[in-house]
């Protein structure tokens, strides 16, 4: 089975978030990047588990610059066989999806896996757009994925229960929590990652369809108000009139 896993970077969750250029651009100064956790913990690890159970290969693909190579090497250290980097700055979901689809078009992948979203932009769009471009079925937010022959069986969490769906391969899946458990690379993996192929391909020139007008930080956390447990009336009054949540 040939599996393609889309790997994106996201800022370390402890990064200070700031913007430049009139609040239109994320300020990367001092920011450490990690592999987007949904891509790493769920999409990549489930891809590796399927490969280990059924045979095949796991290729990762990233739309990014040489600055992304560190996150790509981590994916290789965790166990991917080889990596592809489309040599272009990622600008929006459509541009990323069209570059990935252009690469994947004639490669015969049975599964294309992504995380359900990146933890910085939270767009959740790339997987659906790849499926559309490749004219493949798409299952979003899957929490379980098993493959038998050419049929995939997937679980999705829905309000109050679980939805089970079936789809034929080839298939695009966006993976949510529950799909797999985080794998910490071991030293053998880190050493092997040094020599695993990382192919840099020229972008086909996929163009962004959106652009950022501005970013705003959420309002600073205000002080906590403590209310005496005996005084429930005051709590209800505040929730109604001050917090306006009731």
């Amino acid at each position, binding site marked *: 089975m040939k599996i393609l896993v889309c790997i994106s970077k996201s800022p370390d969750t402890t990064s200070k978030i700031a913007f430049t250029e009139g609040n239109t651009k994320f300020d990367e100064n001092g920011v450490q990047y*990690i592999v987007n956790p949904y891509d790493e913990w769920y999409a990549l690890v489930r891809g590796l588990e399927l490969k280990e159970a059924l045979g095949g290969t796991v290729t990762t693909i990233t739309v990014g610059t040489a600055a992304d190579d*560190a996150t790509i090497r981590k994916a290789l250290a965790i166990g991917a066989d080889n990596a592809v980097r489309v040599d272009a700055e990622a600008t929006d979901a459509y541009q990323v999806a069209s570059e990935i689809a252009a690469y994947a078009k004639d490669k015969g992948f049975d599964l294309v896996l992504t995380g359900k979203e990146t933890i910085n932009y939270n767009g959740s769009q790339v997987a659906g757009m790849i499926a559309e471009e490749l004219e493949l079925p798409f299952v979003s937010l899957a929490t379980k994925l098993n493959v038998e022959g050419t049929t995939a069986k997937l679980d999705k969490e829905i309000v109050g229960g679980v939805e089970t769906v079936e789809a034929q391969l080839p298939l695009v899946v966006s993976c949510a929590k529950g799909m797999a458990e985080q794998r910490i690379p071991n030293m053998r993996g*880190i050493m092997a990652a040094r020599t695993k192929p990382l192919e840099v391909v020229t972008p086909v020139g996929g163009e962004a369809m959106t652009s950022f007008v501005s970013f705003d930080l959420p309002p600073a956390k205000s002080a906590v108000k403590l209310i005496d447990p005996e005084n429930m009336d005051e709590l209800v009054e505040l929730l109604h009139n001050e917090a306006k949540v009731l």
Partner: protein
Amino acid sequence: MATDLYTHPDYFNMDDLLTDEHKLIRDTARAWVKKEVSPIIDEHYENATFPMHILSGLGEIGAFGPYIPTKYGGPELDQISYGLIMQELERCDSGLRSTASVQSSLVMYPIWKYGSEEQKMKYLPKLATGEMIGCFGLTEPDHGSNPAGMITNFKDMGDHYLLNGAKMWISNAPFADIAVVWAKNEEGRIHGLVVERGMEGFSTPEMHGKLSLRASATGELIFENVKVPKENLLPGRSGLGAPLSCLDSARFGIAWGALGAAMDCYDQALRYSKERTQFNVPIGSFQLIQKKLAEMITEITKAQLLTFRLGQLRNEGKATSAQISMAKRNNVEIALNIAREARQIHGGMGITSEYSMMRHMANLESVVTYEGTHDIHLLITGMDVTGIPAFTREMPDLNK
């Protein structure tokens, strides 16, 4: 312990000096520690037990002999990688780092540097995975800072050596499969011998009652007419310089490790001082708390620069023993001071196992003493700058 939220302070952007692989190795060690060790370390510390089940994990993250060549089963990393792994381990607990330091620098290092090809092939691959654990016997009950005075000795019996004596304060001893033991031959020359568990007359009683390094096992090595096969003698080097070169490697790891403990204490103190309120404001808004934090991060930053440069020198094979001494001494001292200050910032909470600084503080009392005491390292620097050794003196005649 509460959820492990550790992130390392990096005031001077030291990360820019690391390679991507360095960072991957460090982050891997950190992720492993957070997942496997942080949740259980307090329990083991309180019960004075070593978490045996993590040994193979330590092998997997490359904590055992990071610089050992791949042909002997090691990952063949550079010295900075070794330092970073030790830093991540001691960030959690000095006992955890001690176990890895001993295995790497005091067992694998001498076998790699001074062992025969057969010895290297026999021991190193198993030591690298943690399948086999080693310990190092140099210190004796009456010979700590003065190892040259050791009495443990061996006699050439023709087809084997006969080993007698005792070693004390030996990390990993209670469960070690092998011991690299330093003993004098009949001419008084110090040699290294690999003693294996199961050899008749060799025992490793555990030492109890430690109020420091409680999550690490410490014991004695006792040799009563132990017959050691001749092929177990390390042939490559003899004399006190051989064990001292191992200590150089271990002290290098301690310099990085102790800095890790300091960084952990600072990280918690900074977070706590922003969260804890008194007089309706976070305690971090008080000048006296800021003074502590500012001094801590200044000392940490200086130590980071010193330690990184030492890593570069060690990579180039240029680091002197005296430079390593200075780094070990400095970093352990600042770690102890920072642990105490961080404890104060935490007020009463600081004495509970909810936070790690009290454990670090108690652990560091061992670290400031072992592998060359704080004072001995000072004398090494003193000797290095003056050219005059001040370690010994004649016993004054009190009758005069």
